[in-house]
């Protein structure tokens, strides 16, 4: 096996990793702040994709420039996904802040099923072709067999989003408030933070990234149905845990590691066990680093 093959697998793994990363970021943020495995996060991603599909479909007859349609669709998808995100938080999670954590988890699972079936019933159970709106970037032509335009855009977007998030959390007031809220909600209130608003904001940006992910990934894959969120969500969740759940760079690193493991596992061993590689790798990492690659040790001082 030659080195081109290696590079192809590497880039393939990287793209796949950044796909996971866009979803994992939202997962990890929500987890970080309310320690909830938001099972319905994948559904927000799916709704983002569907919204974009609907908008671009509805705009198709206007004869607008496809790039413009794509941008409009993406913006609308972000707005609606964010709205779904905060509505979901208000209905299904906020009343459960003080409840046992597993109750919130089950509520999230219920929400996930509800949203899947809502889209299924309101739209269709069939796969839908997702329009190709992004024109090929000329400078990628020579390498189009290993990296096409959507892959490139996904990679770049992931990097940008991760950097923005890291800056946001580290240097802005809302970032500070998020960190405080994540660690001690009562104390956060006592220093003057509106905890409800911070949590809402977290859902808002988490859902927005999921929507961006939904639009980009669907453009890359070319088809969507109501169920895409569940599988992608699980993988992204695994990636977030691998990286150390709650950590933003961790989510991205975990996603890349996962994507590369799958890609090389498939490429050099067998795709029969593609997911086994991913999961086995996760287990091994966690055995040696019980809080993930970049996670903080959970042990408390006695």
């Amino acid at each position: 096996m030659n080195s081109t093959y290696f590079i192809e697998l590497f880039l393939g793994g990287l793209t796949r990793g950044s796909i996971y990363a866009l979803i994992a970021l939202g997962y990890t943020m929500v987890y970080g702040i309310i320690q909830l495995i938001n099972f319905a996060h994948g559904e927000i991603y799916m709704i983002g994709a569907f919204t974009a599909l609907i908008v671009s479909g509805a705009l198709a007859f206007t004869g607008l420039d496809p790039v413009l349609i794509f941008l409009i669709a993406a913006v609308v998808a972000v707005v609606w996904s964010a709205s779904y995100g905060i509505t979901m938080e208000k209905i299904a999670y906020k009343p459960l802040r003080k409840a046992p954590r597993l109750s919130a988890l089950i509520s999230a699972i219920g929400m996930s099923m509800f949203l899947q079936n809502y889209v299924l019933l309101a739209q269709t159970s069939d796969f839908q072709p997702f329009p190709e709106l992004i024109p090929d970037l000329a400078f990628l032509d020579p390498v189009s067999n290993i990296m096409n335009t959507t892959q490139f855009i996904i990679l770049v977007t992931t990097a940008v989003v991760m950097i923005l998030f890291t800056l946001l959390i580290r240097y802005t007031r809302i970032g500070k408030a998020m960190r405080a809220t994540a660690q001690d909600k009562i104390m956060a209130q006592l220093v003057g933070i509106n905890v409800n608003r911070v949590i809402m904001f977290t859902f808002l940006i988490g859902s927005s990234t999921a929507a961006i992910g939904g639009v980009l990934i669907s453009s890359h894959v070319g088809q969507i149905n109501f169920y895409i969120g569940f599988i992608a969500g699980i993988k992204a969740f695994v990636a977030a845990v691998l990286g150390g759940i709650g950590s933003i760079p961790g989510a991205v690193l975990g996603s890349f590691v996962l994507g590369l493991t799958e890609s090389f596992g498939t490429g050099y061993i067998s795709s029969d066990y593609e997911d086994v590689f991913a999961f086995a790798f996760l287990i091994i990492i966690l055995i040696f680093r019980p809080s993930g690659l970049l996670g903080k040790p959970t042990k408390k001082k006695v």
Partner: protein
Amino acid sequence: SKDSGTIKIGVAGAHSGDLASYGIPSVKAAELVVEDWNANGGVLGKQIELVVEDDVCKPEVATNTAAKLVGEEVVAVIGHICSGATKAALGIYKDSDIICISPSATNPPLTQSGDYPNFYRTIAPDDAQARLEVDFATQTLGFKKLAVLHDKGDYGKGLAEFAKAMIESDGVAEIVLYEGITVGAVDYSAVLNKVKNSGAEAIIYGGYHPEASKLVGQMRKKGMDTVFISDDGVKDDTFIKVAGEYAEGVYATGPMDTSSNTLTMAANKAHQDKYGEDPGAFFLNAYAATTAILNAIEKAGSTDYDALTKALQSEYVDTTLGSISFDNKGDAIGVGFSVFQVQNGVYVEIQ
């Protein structure tokens, strides 16, 4: 019940959940046939009543479904849709002398093992389909290097295994790659790189259309022009709709085109009239299955198990799949498969 005013026929399969699109058309087919017959006086002077039960394609649910149908005293069942669920349910039907005709369960042992004497199907088994695919790839197209992929599922992997065994025993072509892909994965670039690297001239894929359209789409975007040959899980218009331009040139095997058959045209039209859209997967097979069982009841003059068995195995009946009968294992005689190719956005029968 058997003595009361109606004759009950069960319809079982996935009617909800992610596989519903494979099960619902068979319900519609059975309804259309039965409406037709009932309008003409039913069978044996009785009206026919359908008992529709959902098994969501799960074996454990199928046993409950079967128990329910037995309790309803149906004389025959159209279904189930998935092979696994069918296997789980058949034992129960066998015990109660109920005939089961599936429009879609293609797993070969269902007929070939001899374990299920009450089972019939209006679709060719997987091995027949695999035979056709392999012959087409190695003889018609003359390929020497083949990649065999599947979706690790019951149906897809079964088919791929047959194809693999046949290619190996034929010795005409070589299998350069044999792998299962992961259903629902966000992308297949790694496995496609592997295909490319293996030098395969064609892919024989066992599985359903969603993965097929993803595979084909990504393959073409990567600039690979490897030929794609698949099965009747892909010979579905949704595949063309989703894969769009990338679908061009894809081969898929499927039941012979009978659309010029008058019965078939009538059935399709009836569906159009009633539901306003074209029928879905296995509609014609289910239509044929329902016709066959009603015909057998009429010919046998009773709903007795032995009489029905005899009628099914001896009488030819005109159906949407042509004139068919069943062999003593339960496979339909007269139901054949052809190879289709996507040309200008439609499947065209080419062999």
